[in-house]
Every structure is written in C-alpha cells, then in structure tokens.
C-alpha cells in the first residue's frame, strides 16, 4: 500500500469568518472562501479541473449542482462528500487522491455549512441522529438523542475511571476551554473572540450533565476551501506550499453502542486513525514530531480524550498535561491555536478545512499573534458521530 506522503500539496486556501452569519447565504460563503483561495494561489477559476464539495446538512440531498451554479464551473466534475464532522477533511482527502492518481492536476476541495438558517440552537440534525441510532432505519425507536449527552456520557465515564469527582473533572475540562477562548481572542475570523474564566465555565448552565454551556462548541455558519496540486509541481505555484503527509479516515461500527467491552473513556476511531496517519507520515513519536494540532473539541471532554487517543500523552494523563500547560499556545505542543471548534465555531461540513487553513497559515508564518514558533508537522483531527460510534479523520501536513 503506497503512502500519499508528499504526492500532493496545498497552494491556496480561503476561509470565511465563522459565526452566525445572518447576512450571508451558503452560496455567499462558498464564493468568499473559494475566491480567497484563488487569490492566495494566484489562480483563475478556469484553472480548476475538478471539485469536491463537502457539506453535511446544507443543500442536501444534492449540493453538487448548486455548487456548479454558484461558481459557474462549466462542465467539470463536481462531487458531493458527506462524512459527518469529517466531511471537509474527506473532501480534501478525495481531491488529494484524484490529484495523486493523475486524474487531474489541480483540484478544489470545499467545505461549507449553513446551520443558522434553521432557527434552532444546537444542531439541526437530531432527527438524522435518531434515525442512525434507532433499532433499525426509519423506525425512530431510539433513545432521546443529542450530541451533548453522548459526549457527556464520555465525561461521566472518564471521571469515574480516573477517580475524578465531577468538580475535579469539570475543572480540568474548564482549563481546556479557557485555553481555547484565549486562543480565539487572537483569531479575527473566529465565532467567539472573548476570554473566559474557569469560574465562568464552572458556573454556566448545564447543557448535558456534567457538561455546561462553555463545555460545548459554537454552532456556526462558515466555509473554507483548498486548492490542491501535484507535489512535484507545487513550488511552481508558490514558494511555500504545504505538503500532504497523511490523510486517514477511520469509521467505527458503533461499538460503544453495542459492546460492553467499550468503556466510553476513549474514542477508538481517533486512536486507529492516528496510528494509520502516523504510519503513513513515517512518524514514530507523535508527541515530539508533531509541532501543533487542530483537533475536534466539539466538547471539552473530547479534546481531553483526543490528547490521549492521539498519543500526545498517556491514558489518564490529560489532567496533568492540562495543568502543565502542554497544549497552550506557548506550550510544548500547541493545540487549537485558532480557538478550535469551541471558539472558531463548528459549521459541520466546513470544519476540517478550517483546521487545515490554520495549519497552512501557521506553517507559512502568517498566524500573527497566534504564531507557533518554528512549526514543522501540523495535524488536523475531526470526529463525527459520538464516542460510541464515530467517523474520524487525521490529516498531517508539513512544509
């Protein structure tokens, strides 16, 4: 099995401001992100040879033709990708595979989501989720499903396994959220750009016990785009392209919903996707070799467990690392430099490419007050579904 390492490079990226974009449509955001990427790459629209559009909820069930209409792509291939919260990362992966195969030389991957036209707080997808978690499709014989309650169950189990009282556990998680808000305050395109305190997190209303308001990420609109080219031609487009080192996806079989061996204190899909990505990229020691990571902090507990699943620390080690500041902007392995899902926001189908946008800017040294010193390899991680059954992407890129 060949590796994708260095066969594909990103030479242009764009990303809208994330947030409650009342004044911008799904179409507006796609145009904004894509034209920023064109400009960044120094390309014309006609240069693109194939398109991958990732969206989870917007424009369903047929976003391909709308994309062609929005961008007037002519009569070129457009493919819609949906893979839960890993949707944009999978759009990038598929576009990269097309370029690596030689099927096309220049491809555009887009992730876009319009959530805030729904009129709901929280995700507008409970019915889809209940369909997935039912005894059988279309029966709706299901528990009362929400995303927060399922990640909250991981917190309950994690606290129990490692002997943390709910107060101790919540305090650990609060520190992660305070970190992400601090980073978000330097992030002009982020949904939330305000610092918070541990006390604010601990005293916030409970969304799904033990998780409170500040343990949950923003529900946002946004779009991001990347232009991919052959690795061997990348430097003809710009002097500082970033090269794909690994693109992995792991999709679980909802083991956490069915197998009593699964204890809800880890996400196996993250662990497996991480293993595969490290192997593909030739990484032996992730903690030492990864310079920075954008990970899927949909909830505070998710980020804590990701540290362990991606082998940034040992099992049960999240708390001591958080206390040591390991993952802060100035720490040993900065995580969620742009504020993460918590502050940058989480338009489901756009998030993976937003993460890549941050890594891309960091490697090019353009991250301003968020700039990580001497970054080398950067990692992005998406987690769709729940700890009981997830689709996880791990992507690694570098100069």
């Amino acid at each position, binding site marked *: 099995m060949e590796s994708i390492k260095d066969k594909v490079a990103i030479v242009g990226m764009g990303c809208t401001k994330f947030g409650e974009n009342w004044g911008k449509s799904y179409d507006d955001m796609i145009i904004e992100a894509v034209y920023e990427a064109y400009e960044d790459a120094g390309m014309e629209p006609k240069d693109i040879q194939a398109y991958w559009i990732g969206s989870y909820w917007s424009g369903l069930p047929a976003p391909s033709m709308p994309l062609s209409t929005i961008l007037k792509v002519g009569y070129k291939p457009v493919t819609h990708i949906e893979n839960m919260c890993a949707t944009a990362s999978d759009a990038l992966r598929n576009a990269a595979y097309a370029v690596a195969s030689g099927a096309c030389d220049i491809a555009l991957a887009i992730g876009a989501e319009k959530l805030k036209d729904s009129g709901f707080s929280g995700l507008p*997808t409970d019915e889809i989720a209940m369909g997935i978690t039912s005894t059988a499709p*279309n029966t709706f014989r299901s528990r009362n499903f929400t995303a927060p*309650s399922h990640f909250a*169950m991981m917190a309950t189990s994690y606290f129990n396994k490692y002997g943390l009282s709910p107060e101790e556990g919540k305090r650990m998680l609060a520190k992660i959220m305070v970190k992400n808000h601090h980073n978000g305050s330097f992030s002009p395109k982020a949904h939330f750009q305000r610092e918070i305190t541990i006390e604010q997190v601990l005293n916030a209303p409970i969304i*799904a016990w*033990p998780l409170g308001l500040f343990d949950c990420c923003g529900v946002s609109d946004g779009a991001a785009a990347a232009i991919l080219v052959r690795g061997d031609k990348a430097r003809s487009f710009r002097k500082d392209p970033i090269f794909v080192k690994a693109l992995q996806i792991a999709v679980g079989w909802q083991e956490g919903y069915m197998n009593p061996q699964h204890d809800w204190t880890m996400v196996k899909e993250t662990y497996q996707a991480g293993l595969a990505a490290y192997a593909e990229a030739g990484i032996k020691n992730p903690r030492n070799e990864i310079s920075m990571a954008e990970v899927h902090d949909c909830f505070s507990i998710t980020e804590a467990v990701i540290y362990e699943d991606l082998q940034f620390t040992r099992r049960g080690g999240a708390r001591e690392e958080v206390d040591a500041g390991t993952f802060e902007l100035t720490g040993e392995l900065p995580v969620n430099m742009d504020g993460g899902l918590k502050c940058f926001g989480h338009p489901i189908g756009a998030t993976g490419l937003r993460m890549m946008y941050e890594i891309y800017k960091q490697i090019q040294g353009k991250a301003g007050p968020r700039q990580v010193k001497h970054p080398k390899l950067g990692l992005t991680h998406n987690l769709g579904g729940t700890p009981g059954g997830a689709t996880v992407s791990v992507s690694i890129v570098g100069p």
Partner: protein
Amino acid sequence: MMVGLKSYGVYIPYFRLSRAEISKSWGGFPAPGERAVANYDEDTITIAVAACRDCLRGFDPQEIERLLLASTTFPYGEKQSASIVAAALDLKKEALTLDLSSSLRSGTTGVRLAFEAIRAGTSKNILVCASDIRMGLPNGPRELEFGDGASALLLGDTGVIATVDCMFSSNEDIYDVFRPAEENCVRSWEDRFCREAGYTQILLETITAAAKKFKFTAKDFAKAVLYAPNPGYLAGVARAAGFDLKTQVQDSLYSMVGNTGTALSSMMLAAALDEAKPGDRILWVGYGDGCDVIVLTVTDEITKIQERKTLQKHLTAKNTLSYPKYLRWRSVIETEPPMRPKPEPASAAALYRDRKCGMALYGVKCKDCGTVQYPVQRICMSCLSKDNFEDYCFAHRIGRITTFSHDNLAVSPDPPSTVAVVDFDGGGRIMMDITDRDPSEIKIGMPVEMTFRHIRYVEGIHNYWWKCRPMRSSVLS
C-alpha cells in the same frame, strides 16, 4: 376442572399528583389524598404491557392463548390495541386478541368471557388486562377523582389461586358518566343522580339478583371488592348491601391511586388477594352501563403469588408530580414549542420489519462465539460470522448503568432527559433513556429493569420502544 385465576398483576405509574395541589391551584376546597399519573412516555398500551408483565412473572408468554384488553382510552379508533400489547409481550402468533372497549365494566366482562371459554374447553390460558388513562376537565371533580393504572389477570384451569364459582351480569342504558367519541374528557350528570339512580341502585339490584340465583348472603364473604369511583359511593353501597365496612370491604385505593376506570375493579381485587387467606370467598363487582357480579374462592396456591407483594411494590415506588407538569403531559395546556427540529414520522414498513427487535426487545446471540448483541445484527460484531444467530430477548433482563448523562438540550416534557449506556447481566449493551427516575439517584453501576414506553406520536402513528428504569423494589429480582 378447577377454573379460575392463576395470577394477577397491576401497574401503578411512578408519579403521584396531590389533590390538594390541584384544588389549591383553582382556589377550591383541598381534596384529600393523591392520584396516580402516567408518565409522559406512557399510554393505555404501555401501562397495559406493564401490568401484564407483572402478572406473567414466572409464566411463559408463549403459553398464553388469548389476550382480552379492556379500556375506554385506546389510542386508535381503528387498529387493535391488544395486538400491540401482544407484540410487546411476545405472545405467540396464534393467540387470539380482542379489544373490549367503551365500558368501565369491560374488565370484569372480559373475565367472564375468559372464564366461560376455559370452562367450555376452548382455551387454557387467557390473559385479561384492563388499562385506563382517563381525563377530566381541569378544576372539575373527575380530574381529582381519576387515577391512571392497569391491572391484569391470568385465567386458566391449573394452578388456580382463586376459583371462579359463579357469575351474574346486568346491563343498563344510563348517562351517569360518559364520554362522546370526539371528546377527551369524561362528562357526568348531576352527582346525586349518578350515585343514587345509577351506581347504588344498579349495584344493589344486580347483587340482590345474583344472591337470589346463587343463594349467597353478605356474611358468606371474607371480602367484598366493589368497584367504586370514590370512598363515599363505596361506603354507601357496601352498607346497603349488608357488609361490615371495617372488616369486609376492600378499600378502593382512592387516597393513593384514584379511580383507574376499567382497571379499578381488578386492581382492587389484586389488593384483596394480596391479603386473602386460603378458603376466603370474595364477592367481586364491576360497574359501568350495568354490573358484573363474580364470586371467587381463594385456594392454597395464593401464598406463592402473595410473595410478590403486588400492590405494595407499586404503591411504595413513587415520586410527586407538579400540577403544571400533569397539564403538560396530558396535553391539557399547550406549551411553547421547543426551537428544535420537528419529529419525523416513523415508516410503517420499517416498524413492521423491526417488530420483534423493537416491540419485544429481541437481539441476537451468535451461535458461533456466543456474543449477545442488540439490535439484531446479521454479521456478528465479535467473530464476523454471517446469519448464524439465535434470538435473544432482553425484556426481562437486568441491566447496569455503565455511564449516563442528564440532558437539558433534548426535547422532553420532563427535562432533563436521562440517557445511559446499559450493560446486561448475561451480555449485551443497549443505549437507552432512563425513565421514572429521580436524577439525583442515578449512579454508575446501579441496576435497571426494562419498561415498554411510548416514544413519539407523529402523523397518526404511536411509536413504542423500551426504556430502562431503576428497579421498582427489592421484591423484584
């Protein structure tokens, strides 16, 4: 051939609403006691299933040959409720199912039909269930009087705990309490008419006629179990019929449960049987559009069933409910709709395919590696063998909570919505809601039992599945 009752069971919902709180809300005289209220996820079907499961403890559902289900509050005008209950109970396909509707008396009438079928030799095991969730208009006497509940009796010709000795019935066309088909709340004529011309007169006439035919007197009975909407009616008719109020008359459960309609007479009988001694004779009377009189004699077998403490376990497992929540749960008031997606209808075809897994809570056990799994799989999650499973029912198994959350975001008429990972003794895991719970009591490792619940009503389809609940009492094991 000894024909009679083989078992009995009841179901009283977890929640109790104080009558004083209802009265206080409307500025009325504080009425005494409390009434049982079905949870928001319960209906006539689910509480019927619960009572039948209580009754069938220790019996094989596959041996039930008939199910007669009595109620005045069936969820469908056209579609049988008994067949829904049969699916949840996992009765055999050949079981005869029938709904007995429209009369408060249909529970006792069902017992008579069952008895006669067994005596005629056409059937051996017949389950007769009565279940009601009746509504009275707010600030009215029936809202105070009614309680929600179900009861079930198993009749047969072996292992009989009480023989049925004789039966007598009458019918009467009278507008005392009644409900037009297009209305939700029970209406009533003037109370004095209902009590004197209706209830008291019809009961006395029928009991007297039965006594004449079968040559019994009030003194022959250890207990009179007389359907009664409230203690006042009961005392009046019992006294007039010659019973000693202190020693001979079964309490109507008014102060703790309320008038459970069709279910009340057999629920009172269950209470009487819980305390009965072998040899006791019981006069059992059902009322509604006439009257059913049934005479029973308790046998030595009664002591085995009494170990279950049927009424006590249901009366002690309870929690209080506020009046506004009651009004919301029964859709008496319309509350602000949640800013969440509208529920989608379940597919009738999908529900049909899923009926064994969804209704009777069957998963599978791999014949190759023995791994238990839910829902039904075709490829084993453990050894990957294909289509090599045996059926495996979870409905009677005890689970333990592995992890949980109390969810305030989920749409629920009783927030927070408590969801859990439930691992079963003997294998298998199901993700389920926890119902009938006090959130503060939920802990990792605590045991839970299965309970059949109403999940959603969308576009005419009532959708049912299972939840778990904390164990009702240590008596259940």
